[in-house]
C-alpha cells in the first residue's frame, strides 16, 4: 500500500527524522495560509499523487511570495499531472504540500527495502542523491552501499557509521546520519513497511541533514495492525475496479486487451494470460478468484470483468483443488442468467468435482463454449473475439 509524500513526512517526523517545515493544502487559499504560518521568503508547492517524476510534469514549483504559492496551488490542484510514471491521461491532483524551500548544499540517497535474496531488511545509500537509484546502480555500482540488517539485533550504531562514512557523511554530520538512519529503520520495522526512500537526503543551511523528499509503502498483509497507516490509504489513487474486486475477495488487475479472464490461482492466471497471448490474443485483465470460491464470488468476478468496456469475450479457467467445480459452475449459470451476458463465455473446468460442474453447465442450456484444456480454452477465446470483428 502506497501513501502520499505528506503522509510519509508526517510519519517520519513522529519518529524523529528531520523533514522540512510544511503541511498539506487542498485549496489555493489554505496553501497561502500555510505559507504564511511557515514563514520565510521561499516555498515549494508539491503536487501530491502517488506517481513519481512529479517535477518533470510541472508538479513541483518554487514560489518567492505567498501570492505565488497561491497561484501555483490554484494551478496544480484540480489539474491532471502527467509524469513518466503515470498513464498518458495523467493523475488528478487533489492536494499540494506547501513547504519552506531549502538551500541544498549536497544531496544523498537513503533507502530501505526487503532484499529477497538476503531475506533481510537492507539499507541502500549513495552519495549520488536526487537521481533514480536504479540508474546509479547501473552506471556506477560502486557508489551504491548496501547493508543488510540482522533482525535479531536491529540496526546498530556501528553499521550506520559504516554507511555514513562510505557515502561521505563524516565529521559533525555523522552523528546526525546515525540518528536519522536508526529512526528510519525503527519506523520501517514498527509499521511493517516494504519500502522507504529518502531522495534526496540533503545537507542544508547550517550543516543540517534533512529528508527533502520521502516515500514509503507498506505491507498490505500487515496494515490491519496499524489503523493510522490504514487511514492513509487514498482510494482515489487506485483503479475503482481493483478496489471493488478486493472488497469481494478477488485479486483483479486491469490490462489493455479484450479477453476477460477469470482464473483460480495467481500462477495459473498468469499462464492463462500467456496462453491467450501465444494465440495472438490479448488479455483484458488478471483475475484470481482465490480458493473456496462461492457461486456468488464467481458471479461477482463476471460483473467486475465486464465493467471493462474493452472486454469482447470471457475465459473462465478453473483447476480446482481447494475450489469446487460445482460451485464455480453455479456461479457461471447465475452470472449468465442475471447479468444478460452477451459476450461469448469460454469455460474450462478441471479438478475437484469436475463431473458435477460439467453437469450443471450442460443442464443449464446456456450458450457457453466448452473447452477441454488450457490451450483449447485460449484458442477458443481468441477465435471468439476474432469472429466478432
Amino acid at each position, binding site marked *: 500500500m502506497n501513501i502520499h509524500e505528506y503522509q510519509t513526512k508526517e510519519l517520519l517526523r513522529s519518529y524523529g527524522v528531520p523533514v522540512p517545515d510544511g503541511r498539506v493544502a487542498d485549496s489555493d487559499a489554505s496553501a497561502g495560509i500555510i505559507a504564511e504560518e511557515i514563514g520565510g521568503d521561499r516555498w515549494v508547492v508539491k503536487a501530491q499523487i502517488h506517481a513519481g517524476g512529479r517535477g518533470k510534469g510541472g508538479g513541483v514549483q518554487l514560489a518567492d511570495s505567498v501570492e505565488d504559492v497561491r497561484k501555483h496551488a490554484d494551478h496544480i490542484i484540480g489539474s491532471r499531472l502527467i509524469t513518466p510514471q503515470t498513464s498518458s491521461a495523467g493523475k488528478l491532483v487533489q492536494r499540494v504540500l506547501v513547504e519552506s524551500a531549502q538551500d541544498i548544499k549536497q544531496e544523498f540517497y537513503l533507502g530501505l527495502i526487503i532484499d529477497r535474496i538476503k531475506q533481510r*531488511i537492507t539499507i541502500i545509500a549513495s552519495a549520488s542523491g536526487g537521481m533514480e537509484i536504479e540508474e546509479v546502480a547501473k552506471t556506477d555500482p560502486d557508489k551504491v552501499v548496501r547493508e543488510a540488517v540482522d533482525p535479531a539485533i536491529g540496526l546498530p550504531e556501528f553499521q550506520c557509521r559504516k554507511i555514513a562514512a562510505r557515502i561521505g557523511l563524516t565529521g559533525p554530520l555523522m552523528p546526525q546520519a546515525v540518528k536519522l538512519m536508526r529512526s528510519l529503520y525503527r519506523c520501517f520495522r514498527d509499521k*511493517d513497511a516494504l519500502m522507504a526512500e529518502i531522495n534526496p537526503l540533503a545537507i542544508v543551511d547550517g550543516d543540517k541533514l534533512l529528508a527533502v523528499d520521502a516515500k514509503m509503502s507498506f505491507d498490505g498483509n500487515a496494515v490491519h495492525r496499524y489503523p493510522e497507516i490504514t487511514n492513509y490509504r487514498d482510494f482515489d489513487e487506485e483503479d475503482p475496479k481493483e478496489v471493488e474486486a478486493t472488497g469481494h475477495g478477488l485479486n483483479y488487475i486491469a490490462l489493455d486487451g479484450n479477453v476477460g479472464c477469470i482464473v483460480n*490461482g*495467481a*500462477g495459473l492466471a498468469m*499462464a492463462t494470460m*500467456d496462453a491467450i497471448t501465444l494465440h495472438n490474443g490479448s488479455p483484458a485483465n488478471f483475475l484470481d478468484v482465490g480458493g473456496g470460491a462461492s457461486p456468488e464470488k464467481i458471479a461477482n468476478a463476471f460483473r467486475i470483468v465486464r465493467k471493462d468496456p474493452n472486454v469482447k469475450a470471457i475465459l473462465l479457467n478453473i483447476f480446482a483443488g*481447494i475450489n469446487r467445480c460445482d460451485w464455480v459452475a453455479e456461479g457461471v449459470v447465475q452470472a449468465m442468467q442475471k447479468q444478460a451476458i452477451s459476450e461469448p463465455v469460454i469455460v474450462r473446468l478441471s479438478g*475437484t468435482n469436475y463431473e458435477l460442474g460439467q453437469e450443471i453447465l450442460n443442464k443449464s442450456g446456456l450458450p457457453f463454449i466448452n473447452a477441454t484444456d488450457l490451450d483449447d480454452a485460449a484458442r477458443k477465446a481468441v477465435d471468439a473475439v476474432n469472429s466478432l470483428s
Partner: protein
Amino acid sequence: MSVFINKDSRVIYQGFTGQHATFHAEEAIKHGTNIVGGVTPGKGGTTHLDRPVFDTVSDAVREAGANVSGIFVPPQFAADAILEAIEAGIKTIIVIADGIPVQDMVRVKRYVIGHETIIFGPNTAGVITPEECKVGIMPANIYKPGRIGVVSRSGTLNYEAVAQMTARGHGQSTSVGIGGDPINGANFVNVLSAFNDDPDTDAVVLIGEIGGQQEVDAAEWAKENMDKPVIGFIAGVSAPPGRRMGHAGAIISAKADTAVAKMDAMEELGVHVVRNPADIGETVDRALKG
C-alpha cells in the same frame, strides 16, 4: 523413493480443529498420510478425527513423535506457529497460510538458522508424495506415483502441469510447492538438490514466475551440479512491469526478472524450456527421450 515426505512421515497439522485444516486433514488421511495428531492451543487432551489434539507442538513431538507439520493457522498468527514448530524440533514445516506479513518471515528466516528444519512456503499448495503422504490443499487424485520431481511456486499451475504429465503417463516422485511469497523457506535449489540425490527421480519439472532471480539461480546450479534433465516454465510473459500479479513475489522490478528474460537465461543454461504452458507434458516426453 521420494523427497522430504513419505509414508513414514509423522505428520501434525497446526490449527488442526479449524474448518480448512479439518477438511484437508481428512483428505490427506484418505490419501494414506500418517497424521498422528494436531495442535490447537487450548484444546489439548481432546481428540479430533480420531487423533489426539495437543496444546503445543513440543507436546506433539514428545507424545506422538511428530516430525512434519502443516501450518493451517490464519496468516497473522502463522509466523508464531512456524517459530513454535522450529523450536520444538519439527524437521519439515509446510506453510499453507497465505498472506503472512513479509517482515514476519524475515524474523522466521533469521530464527531458523542453526536449526535442522526445512520450511516450504508460505502460500504453498503443499508437498505430496503420491499415495504415500500429502500435506497441503492439492487435489490428490491428479497425482500418480512415478519418477518425475515437480517443484513450483504456484499451486494451480502445479496442478495444470501435473495433470498434463499424468495424462501422458508420467507419475511424480514428489511434488513440492515452495510458495508465491517474496520471502519463503526452501528455494528451487534446495529442492533440485534433493531430487538430484533421489535415486527414484529421473527428471525435474520446475515451474516459476516473474519476479526475483530464483529460477535463473536454480538453472545455474543445475548446470553445474545436476545429472538429470530439468524442464522449466516461467509464467507471466504477458504481465506488465511494476504490477504485482497476485503473488506478492510476482512483480517485475528489473529487466532480468521478466518471464522471457528468465526463460532465455534458463535455456542457455541447458534447461528444457517450455514456452507454452499447454506444452509442459509434451516437453517432459521430449526431455526423457532426448
